[in-house]
């Protein structure tokens, strides 16, 4: 199965601190994507990183990809209360026609 596994399942930090979430997967990928889901809402795309890329930034977000370890990390710097949400990684396997999601990390930012 291509399914990603995320670590930790839940993370609680103070506002202003950095949050790091990790994702591991099992087979070769075309790309890996991170999504955010606020409570009771749909998923919102954050960043896509392709298999030939190692790092991408978007605002306070930094994503790394290590294809040799089949893992990715999402770093949110200077966290804010509004960052409280669930974060999912999703992979597109080589030759696959679908996104496969991990089980997510529930992030809570305490004011």
């Amino acid at each position: 199965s291509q399914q990603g596994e995320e670590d930790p399942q839940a993370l609680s930090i103070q506002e202003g601190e950095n949050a790091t979430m990790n994702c591991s997967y099992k087979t070769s990928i075309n790309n890996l994507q991170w999504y955010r889901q606020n409570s009771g809402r749909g998923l919102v795309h954050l960043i896509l990183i392709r298999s030939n890329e190692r790092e991408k930034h978007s605002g306070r977000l930094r994503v790394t990809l290590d294809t040799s370890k089949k893992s990715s990390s999402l770093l949110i710097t200077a966290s804010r209360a509004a960052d409280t949400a669930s974060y999912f990684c999703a992979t597109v396997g080589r030759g696959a026609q679908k996104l496969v999601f991990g089980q997510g990390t529930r992030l809570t930012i305490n004011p």
Partner: protein
Amino acid sequence: DTAVSQTPKYLVTQMGNDKSIKCEQNLGHDTMYWYKQDSKKFLKIMFSYNNKELIINETVPNRFSPKSPDKAHLNLHINSLELGDSAVYFCATGGPSALSNEQFFGPGTRLTVL
């Protein structure tokens, strides 16, 4: 305008009933998807359509029948609802080379089967 909309937002029904969920997108994308998110937040693809043609059917029971009347709509009809069908159902779309780019999700439909 909402890019991907779903109706209804909440659906509560009895076991054995038949119900439909509608999805509409105004992004002009060719590809549309249905996902199911269970109580543990696990999100899994059910179907994908490209330009009204079924591309993926992830061994979903045939009680579930997607229908795409046109490129902007992908509806999900569920027959003989069971307790295990209770979940949040998300519609999503993707543009050209959909899997090489982001997907846009609707707000979800929370289905509760009693």
